[in-house]
C-alpha cells in the first residue's frame, strides 16, 4: 500500500511500465536510482551462502568410490568403509559421507548439486588469506578491498546507503548472521549488508518486552543502550515485522542449541518467509580445521568431522523443509564453501592438513541434482605433497549463481568478478 502511494506521488510521469517487487508501477525514466533498480531482478530470488570455516576435508565428504583403492591407501586411518558410503542416484562412482543422509536425500530428490574440486590458480594454504580470496573473489596475487557479493549489490543498488531504506528497497540488501559484516559483503565504501549479532539478541528484539529496570544499575544502562541501538537500526522495524509474520516453522530444526547453523538458517527462513526482499544471507559454521583425530579410530564414519557434516546436512535439510512449509522454496538457492580442501594423504595423528580443491554444494528446489566434474584423481601411492587438482574456479560457481539465479546480465559479470566465467549447469531451466 505504502509503496503504491510512494509511486503515485513521487513518480508522476508515465514513461514505461515495469514490474518491481511484485507491484505494477509506472517508472519515471529520469530517476537514476529507479532506472538502476529496474535492472535488478524482480522475482524475489534469494541466495544463501554458508561458510564452512577451517577448510573442509572434501575427500571424506564426497568420496570417489571410483578410486576407492587409492583413496583407502592414501588415508587408511580415516578412510570411510566402502559399505558405509552413501550412494547417490545414478552416480555409482561417487558417494557421500555416512553422516550426510539428509543431503543424500536432497540429491536423490533433484535438489542438490555437487561441484567437484573447486579452487583457483596458485592457491593459498593460509586460512586467512584463502578465506579472503573466496570472499573477495580476488586473484591469488591480488588484493581487493571489496567482496564479490558487495560488488554485486553495489551494482544493483547504487549509492547505498544514501537514500536507503526506501520504498523500493525497504529491507536490508544482505543479512549476515554474526558479529561483523563479512568481507564478502563489503562494498566500495560501506558494508552492503547488516549483521544480526547473535540469534539470542535477535530473539530478544522480536519479543518486544516492555523495558524494565534491570537488576544492577550498570546492567540497566547497558540494556537501555542496547534497546536504543535496536530501535535505531534503520532496518530494525522491517526485520521485526517480517519475523513476526511467521509463527510456525519446521520441526526439523535442532532446537537444543547444539547446532548453531540450524539456528542461523531458521532465522534466515523466517525472514525470507516473512517477506523481506533481502537478496543475500550469509551464515557460517566453524570446526572444519581437523589436523588430528578427525574420525573415531574404531569407526571412521563417526567422530569430529562426521559430527560437523551431520550438523551441516541436518541444518540444510531442516531449512529446505521449512522453505517448503513456508511456500518459498522456489525462491531460494544456497551454496556452501570452505576456504580450501585438505591433503589427499592423511597425517599420522588421524587428521588432514591444509590442501587445495574441495567440493561445493549448491542446494534448493530450483537446483538441478548432479555432479559437476569428475572424481578427483588419486595417485596409487599418495604422498604429503599430493593435492586435489582444481577442476572448477570458484568464481565460475559465483558467476553461475549471479547469472542463472540472480539474473545478472552475462555482460555485467566481469564488473563483479573481473572476468567472464562459463556458467555451470546448476539451476533448472524453467
Amino acid at each position, binding site marked *: 500500500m505504502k509503496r503504491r502511494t510512494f509511486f503515485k506521488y513521487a513518480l508522476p510521469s508515465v514513461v514505461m511500465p515495469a514490474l518491481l517487487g511484485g507491484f505494477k508501477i509506472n517508472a519515471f525514466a529520469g530517476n537514476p536510482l529507479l532506472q538502476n533498480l529496474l535492472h535488478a531482478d524482480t522475482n524475489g530470488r534469494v541466495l544463501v551462502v554458508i*561458510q564452512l*570455516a577451517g577448510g573442509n576435508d572434501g575427500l571424506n565428504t564426497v568420496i570417489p568410490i571410483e578410486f576407492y583403492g587409492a583413496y583407502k591407501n592414501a588415508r587408511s586411518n580415516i578412510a570411510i568403509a566402502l559399505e558405509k558410503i552413501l550412494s547417490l542416484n545414478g552416480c555409482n562412482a561417487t558417494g557421500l559421507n555416512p553422516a550426510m543422509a539428509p543431503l543424500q536425500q536432497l540429491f536423490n530428490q533433484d535438489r542438490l548439486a555437487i561441484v567437484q574440486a573447486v579452487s583457483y590458480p596458485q592457491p593459498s594454504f593460509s586460512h586467512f*588469506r584463502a578465506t579472503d580470496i573466496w570472499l573477495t573473489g580476488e586473484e591469488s596475487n591480488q*588484493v581487493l578491498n571489496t567482496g564479490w557479493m558487495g560488488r554485486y549489490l553495489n551494482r544493483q543498488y547504487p549509492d547505498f546507503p544514501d537514500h536507503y531504506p526506501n520504498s523500493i528497497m525497504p529491507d536490508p540488501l544482505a543479512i549476515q548472521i554474526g558479529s561483523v559484516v563479512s*568481507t564478502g559483503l563489503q562494498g566500495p*565504501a560501506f558494508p552492503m549488508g547488516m549483521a544480526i549479532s547473535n540469534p539470542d539478541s535477535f530473539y530478544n528484539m522480536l519479543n518486544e518486552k516492555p523495558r524494565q*529496570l534491570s537488576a544492577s544499575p550498570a546492567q540497566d*544502562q*547497558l540494556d537501555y543502550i542496547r534497546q536504543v541501538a535496536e*530501535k535505531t537500526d534503520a532496518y530494525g522495524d522491517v526485520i521485526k515485522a517480517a519475523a513476526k509474520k511467521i509463527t510456525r516453522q519446521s520441526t526439523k530444526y535442532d532446537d537444543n542449541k547444539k547446532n548453531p547453523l540450524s539456528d542461523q538458517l531458521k532465522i534466515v527462513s523466517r525472514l525470507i518467509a516473512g517477506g523481506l526482499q533481502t537478496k543475500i544471507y550469509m551464515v557460517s559454521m566453524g570446526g572444519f580445521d581437523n589436523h588430528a583425530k578427525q574420525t573415531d579410530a574404531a569407526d571412521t564414519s563417526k567422530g569430529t568431522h562426521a559430527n560437523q557434516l551431520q550438523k551441516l546436512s541436518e541444518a540444510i535439510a531442516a531449512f529446505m523443509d521449512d522453505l517448503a512449509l513456508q511456500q518459498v522454496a522456489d525462491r531460494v538457492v544456497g551454496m556452501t564453501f570452505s576456504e580450501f580442501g585438505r591433503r589427499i594423504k592423511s597425517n599420522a595423528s588421524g587428521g588432514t592438513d591444509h590442501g587445495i580443491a574441495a567440493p561445493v554444494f549448491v542446494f534448493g528446489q530450483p537446483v538441478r541434482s548432479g555432479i559437476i566434474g569428475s572424481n578427483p584423481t588419486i595417485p596409487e601411492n599418495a604422498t604429503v605433497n599430493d593435492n586435489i587438482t582444481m577442476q572448477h574456479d570458484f568464481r565460475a560457481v559465483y558467476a553461475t549463481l549471479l547469472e542463472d539465479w540472480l539474473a545478472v546480465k552475462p555482460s555485467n559479470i566481469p564488473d563483479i568478478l573481473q572476468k567472464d566465467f562459463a556458467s555451470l549447469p546448476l539451476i533448472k531451466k524453467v
Partner: protein
Amino acid sequence: MKVSYSMERKDFFKILLSKQDTKPGASPTTALTSTLKRYKGKWDEQAVVYFLKHTMFGAKPADVAFFKKKNLKNTVAVMLKDAAMPTTSPINNYASDKIEDEQVQLGSTWVNATNVNGKINYRRRNSYKQWWMGLMINQDRSITEKMVLFWHNHFATETNIAENPVYCYRYNLLLRQHALGNFKALAKAMTTDLCMLRYLNGYANTKKAPDENYGRELQELFTVGKGPGSHYTEADVKAAARVLTGYKIDNKIFTYSFEPNRHDESDKQFSAFYGNTIIKGRAGEDGAYELDDLIEMIFATDETARFICRKLYRFFVFYTIDDATEQEIIIPLSKILRKKNFEIKPVLQALLNSQHFFDMAFRGTTIKSPADFCVGLMREFNVALLPPGDMFAEYSMWEFVHNQASAMQQNIGDPPNVAGWPAYYQQPQYCKLWINSDTLPRRNQLTDRLLSYGFTAKNGSKINIDPIAYAMALPHPEDPDALISDSIQMLYTVPIADAEKSHIKSNILLSNLQGEAANHYWTNAWHTLIEKPDDAVNKKEVLNKLKNLYKYLLNRPEYQVY
C-alpha cells in the same frame, strides 16, 4: 545580551525545574555497602582504568601504565596538583579572502584585540571552543580538565549569548584558575565575571529596575540549589538582586565597574532560611562589599555545601543519591568542605581515595557524555597525533572533535541553558539522556569512521585510529585471547562473559576457526607482521581483522559507559 532571550530561556527552564531532582529518585538504588573510608582494595589495571575514566577524558594506555606503578594515594595527589594555566591562547585561524581581521594576523592570538564585529566574533568564538577542545585532548595527568567541564556545567554560560569572545575566553580562564581552588571564591568571582554579567543580565541590574536573573540563579543553581534542604523564598531572590545592583560593563575596554549611583543602598532583609539576615545597605564604593556579605550568608547555610557535594557526586560517582548516600557520603563530604572553608581539593581527595568511589556497584553506571566519548576516544587511541607546530591542522582537528560532540548533544561552550546539560541533573534519566536514536548512531559512526577513512585535517594529514599500533602496545597481541581480554580491560569498566570473548575471537580474529589450535593462525599472522612488516598481504589481513575487532568493541554498549 537581549533580555527577551533570557526570559525565554527562563521559561524553558521553569518547565525543566518541575521535573528536576528534588528528592532521592525512583531510579535504581544500591544498598550502600561502602563509605568514605580509605580504599584498601587492589590497585590493579582494572582499578586504574576505572579511576582514570572518571577523572580524565578516557584512560590512555600510557597513563594507565604510569599510574599503575604508583599507589592510589600518590595517584590522587598527582591528579589534584594545581595544573599550570594554559601556555597557549586561541588564535586567528579564520582569516581568509572573505574575512579580514584588521588587528590580528592569521596565526596570532586575538585575546588582546579590541576590534569586535559580528562576523569576527563568531569566528573567534569557534576558535575559542576549538582551543578548549585542544586543551581537553592534550590534557596533563590531572583532574583539572574534568573539573573545568564540571564548573562550566555548574556556572553555565553560553558563548552565543555572551557574544564577546574575549569574555568567553576570560570566563574559561576563571574556571581554570579556580578549578581545584575555592568554591566560595569562585562563586564570588563569577558574580562579576564579564561573561556571566552579560549572560545573566548582572550588568543591567540597577536600583531603578532590578533584574533578578543572576540573583535567582545564584541561589537556585549555583549555591543552595533546589534540594530538599533549600527553602529560600521569592523575597530572597528579590533581596539578592538588590544587593547585586550597580554593576556595569564597558564593552569598549572589556571591563566591568561598580557604579554607586546604580546601586540600591537600602537594607536587604532575607528569610528565615538565611537566619533572617539583614544585609546592611552601603553607600558609595562600599556598596560593592555587599556582595561579600551575600556570599557569606549563602555559604553559611548547610545546604550550599551539600548541594555542590551532591553535584560532584553525580559527576564523579553515580546519579542516584538515596537517603543512605546522603547520610554516609554527601553530608560527611559537605562537612569537609565547610571545615576546609570551601576548598574543593580536600573533598575530591576524600572522595577519590574512598572505598565508596571504587565500589563495584558503580562500575559501568555512568553513560559517557559526548565530551567523554569523543575526547576519550581520541586520547585512548592516540588519535590526535599531528606533526607539532601546524596550528591550523590542529585547530581543524579540534573543530572536528568539537563538532562531533556537538552533534551528540554536548556543544562545549554552549550548554542548552543556565542549568547546564540535563543529563547531569534531570531525574530519573540523567546520563541516559545522552543516548537516543539520533546520538547513538553518531557515536557508532564516529568510531567506525576513525577506523576506516578517518578525518582529513587542514594540512592533509589523515586522522584515524591505528589499530596495529594500539594492539602493539598491549602485552601479548600475538595471543588472540590476551589481545581481546587486554583490549577489553583497557576499554571497558564492566566485564563481558568468557563465552562472548571466545565468540568475538573466532568470529572476528580467527575467520570462524575454532578450538585452541586455531589460535596459532592469528599468532602466525602477528609474528609475520613483526618479522616481515613489508608483507602487504599479511598486513592487510591483520589490519582488517583488528579494524573489525575494534569497530565491534567500540560499538558495544560497554564502551558507552564507565
